[in-house]
């Protein structure tokens, strides 16, 4: 009997969902004059870059997973 590989199937589903999202993107969005909220400094994805960098360093040293938001990288022998 063929063993069903749940992990592989899950990866395929996630991939298909991402592709489906791409198709829907064309109808999403705002006109340039509707960006008063989006243009706020605190709405930038890197609004708290220094904090996020420090957090990445802490969690990189203390947990087995890194990256996601940015490159997983390496860079220190943190204990």
């Amino acid at each position: 009997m063929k063993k069903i590989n749940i992990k592989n199937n899950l990866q395929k589903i996630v991939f298909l969902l991402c592709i489906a999202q791409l198709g829907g993107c064309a109808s999403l969005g705002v006109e340039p004059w509707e960006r008063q909220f989006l243009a706020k400094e605190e709405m930038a994805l890197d609004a708290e870059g220094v904090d996020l960098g420090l957090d990445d360093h802490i969690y990189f040293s203390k947990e087995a997973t890194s990256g996601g938001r940015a490159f997983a990288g390496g860079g220190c022998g943190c204990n």
Partner: protein
Amino acid sequence: MQLIKDKKVAATLAAATCALLGTQPAQANEQKDDAWQFDTAILYYGESDRVQLVEGVFNAKKDFGDEHIFSAKLVVDTLTGASASGAVAQPGVQTFTRPSGNGSYQVNAGETPLDDTFRDTRVQLSGQWTQPIFENTRVSTGFNFSNEYDYLSIGANASLARDFNRKNTTLSFGVSYQFDSIDPVGYAPIGLAQMQLASEFDSEEAFRTAFDATRDTEDKDKDTFDVLLGLTQVINKRMLMQFNYGYSVVDGYLNDPYKLVSVVNDTGLTLRNLHENRPDERTKHNVFWQTKYALDSGVIDVSYRYSTDDWDIDSHTIDSRFRWNISETSYIQPHFRYYTQSAAKFYEPFLEESTPLPMFASADYRLGEMDAYTIGLKYGQTLSNGHKWAVRAEYYSQRPTSDGTAAIGVLNDLDLYPSIDAFILQFNYHF
């Protein structure tokens, strides 16, 4: 006086008009483009009875006009304190050889063995240059360099981002390469070699010979290659989302040279300690989703990350921040983060004498099953001169749990998975 007031009103009106039109005032842009922006921070991280870290950050950024942006960052941190060695607690006093082979240290009965020799200063420098290359397309390249006593890391990255759909959709593709060179204190131990104890030898010379036989004097290094695919999408006037997929391959020396695994007998007593041994390759996949939602007086920021790798470590992370503007110039921001991971396939809290030695084994709790929580609060303020400052305090708790390995004999009465609580305090200043 009246003139100044009128000027202020005119400027406010101009700003309001620009906000309505969704454009930045041209003059403000010019001023912003000329000026360097500096972000500085100092962070204290302290675990009860373990690691203490102080880290300083100095970040400089300048927009040279037409989206030609340069940024540079200097990070200096200093670390002291003790770190869990991986060896199990025992009902009696235990003696361990220091990583250098010079001297030993003792751990009291019932206590988790901690190696207290950590003392390191790290300097990290990075730079990034971003500029448009075609219409709606930007390229970004960067480097980073990090050096500490036993570790050197150099890396470079490059990415391409393109806007579509009236700049509501951005697709990005990035690659990064990192070279790390590790020069452990007392050379790298050979994987699963037995930790030698001076007390078991007749002379210092005999101990040295035995100690040296457990060391590999070859240079140790590793290569990390990352690919990151990103999609940023404006959903509506108040919401935007980001989806990332990250692929990472690490190849080379992946052991922690200072970690041990205890071999116990059928009553749970330690017979010897071995130096850990991990596979020399690891492939990771990350999926990351983030949403930011603008309220009239604040921002909700929620992200989720799923990660899986061929060491069988799966993890889920939820990170959320809620910024609440309590006035025109100040805000408070609660932060909550939850993290959970499964154990690496070669994670062993201890090894049993009666079972054959595996090819790989690590008792590093960071590779075991674990949950972690962070709760924090940040307060920020903009000063009348435009400078900004903020302070945040956080509590971070790591809760390692058993991966199902049954404790044996005396180990049943000892804490094999102690929790670690850390306190974080940070001060930011932007000018």
